[in-house]
């Protein structure tokens, strides 16, 4: 559950009312009309005798976009107060690295409810970055936009650095690549991506503005093992026939280290294929007289039943359908210990299109 503003204020009072080496006491919780964007006025005292008045804004959801907006408004509000020695201060449940960077750039002091803080008083900066983890994960930006069908929006933006003219064009693009997505899902995901300052949608286009972070988030939200519960190993005689049976229907796709091998990026003895249905795969093999011998220990043919929409969206390559650079990069990042080295090469390749 997300914290309410009241809960944020109460926790803030508890945490910083008596703490050392700095203390923040709230003097007024109601502020004059000239500064409606300031939630409270307080006093900040650093141990070294530095003190200042603070114009405080409480934030319940610290998304980058939200913080950026609040920062601009808070800074203006402090200016409108027309008083010396007042610092703008934002208090939020948790301030992550990206959020910290935004607040640094806008010159806003901040504290979070996990024990991290940065206070600037007259050129003197006090930093309490303990690396504490987020104790309020519900206040973190939504992760689901980088998983399942929602992830197709990010994947599409990475595939097309130039961007899309409209949400409809983006939907059509996704659906033309084995995806199945609606305009409302695209709209919801784009809103989140904009909040996170990862993508932008203006009058002329929808495009990625921080492709590196988008790729990073896709990697972080990928679970190699959870998505791939059904792994089968076979020894297959005459497997070359398989490629003529299935191709061009996107019913199987080379993935993992086998896909990396096809691209000359890795060495492996295994053939790794993802299929939508293991039963269908077995039926097709039977029809084509391809002999499947189950062999859990030495089977060199790894068949993974995987219906993750991201996988079937990011396909390329001939004559063997294989995952493209984006899906392969995500898979390799998770496939430790060998994968991350391959992922690094792919990452550079993917982001090259965004370097302009």
């Amino acid at each position, binding site marked *: 559950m997300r914290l309410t503003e009241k809960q944020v204020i109460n926790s803030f009072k508890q945490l910083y009312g008596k703490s050392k080496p700095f203390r923040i006491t709230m003097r007024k919780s109601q502020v004059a009309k000239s500064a409606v964007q300031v939630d409270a006025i307080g006093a900040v005292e650093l141990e070294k005798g530095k003190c200042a008045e603070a114009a405080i804004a409480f934030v319940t959801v610290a998304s980058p976009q939200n913080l950026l907006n609040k920062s601009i408004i808070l800074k203006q509000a402090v200016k409108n107060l027309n008083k010396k020695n007042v610092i703008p201060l934002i208090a939020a449940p948790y301030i992550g690295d990206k959020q910290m960077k935004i607040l640094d750039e806008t010159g806003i002091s901040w504290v979070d409810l996990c024990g991290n803080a940065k206070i600037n008083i007259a050129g003197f900066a006090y930093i309490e970055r303990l690396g504490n983890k987020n104790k309020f994960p519900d206040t973190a930006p939504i992760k689901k936009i980088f998983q399942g069908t929602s992830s197709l929006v990010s994947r599409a933006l990475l595939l097309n650095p130039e961007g899309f003219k409209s949400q409809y064009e983006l939907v059509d693009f996704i659906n033309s690549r084995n995806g199945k997505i609606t305009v409302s899902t695209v709209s919801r995901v784009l809103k989140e991506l904009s909040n996170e300052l990862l993508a932008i949608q203006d009058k002329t286009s929808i495009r990625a503005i921080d492709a590196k972070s988008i790729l990073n988030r896709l990697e972080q939200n990928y679970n190699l093992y959870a998505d791939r519960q059904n792994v089968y190993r076979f020894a297959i005689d005459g497997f070359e026939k398989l490629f003529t049976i299935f191709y061009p229907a996107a019913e199987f796709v080379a993935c993992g280290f086998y896909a990396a091998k096809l691209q000359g990026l890795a*060495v492996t003895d295994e053939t790794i294929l993802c299929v939508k249905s293991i039963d269908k795969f077995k039926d097709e093999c039977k029809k084509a007289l391809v002999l499947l011998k189950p062999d859990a220990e030495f089977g060199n043919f790894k068949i993974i039943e995987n219906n993750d929409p991201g996988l079937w969206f990011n396909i390329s390559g001939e004559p063997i359908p294989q995952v493209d650079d984006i899906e392969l990069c995500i898979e390799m990042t998770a496939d430790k210990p060998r994968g991350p080295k391959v992922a690094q090469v792919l990452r550079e390749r993917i982001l090259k299109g965004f370097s302009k």
Partner: protein
Amino acid sequence: MKDEVLSQLHDLAKAFNKIDIKPVICGGLGIYLKFYSSKNEIELRATNDIDLMLTETQVKSQADRNAVLKTIKDDLHYVLRAQGQCFMFEKSPYDKLDILAPPIQGLTRENDNRVKLVKSKLHGRLTPEAQFIEEDLETVPLHNILSVNCNNNCEIQVPSAVNLLILKLFAFDDRYAKKDTERAQTHAYDIFVIAELSNRADYLQAKEFILRHAESDIIRRAKSVVLDKFDGIQSSGWLSVPRMSLAANLDVSQRNQKIEHAAKRLLRWFED
């Protein structure tokens, strides 16, 4: 693997290639070279010495044996580590070369633990379990492996996976019987590596090999070591594998899963 050992290997290969011998490398270094392409999947053990197996074909005639001696002593400048032990050489305390040899007709004496290749100068530590070592030898070009400047044609050979396994099973059994825990652990870990990193081609080759020599004492003993000491993760062999060396980032149950997988694979090699 330490650069010094690989550099020593390069010198050895270069010198032996000059006399038309591709040195057969066994032990920890042999396992490293055999499974080099999979080295990132499992931590391969570092070693300080080179175990060189001189095969029957390589030392058939007295002239061949003299050429080998000349290469080791004159060209590579190895000296004996201790008088009377003519199968242990060194250049420095960190640069060691051990000579091994399978039983060789006319050179092996009963009740002796060495094969006398050149009297009082060059012996091989008798390794009866290497009787079939020349079967399925694999040639490895060194330029893919070494970071030092390497002659492109420089080549060594490594035994097949099953021969490497047999050597290690015998070594483990001996050390375990002598209660030499530390070295038994090292051999147990090598057995784990071979079981885990062998691919399907290695497995099929091993099955053929074992079938071919099913009646030999070597295969019988190897099989009994597997069945007695490597049958399931609670058996003495698998318990000897130092769990911490498997992968630092794995928890206890993940490590046991790995061992269990290796155990199943190993049993498959020897099942009828």
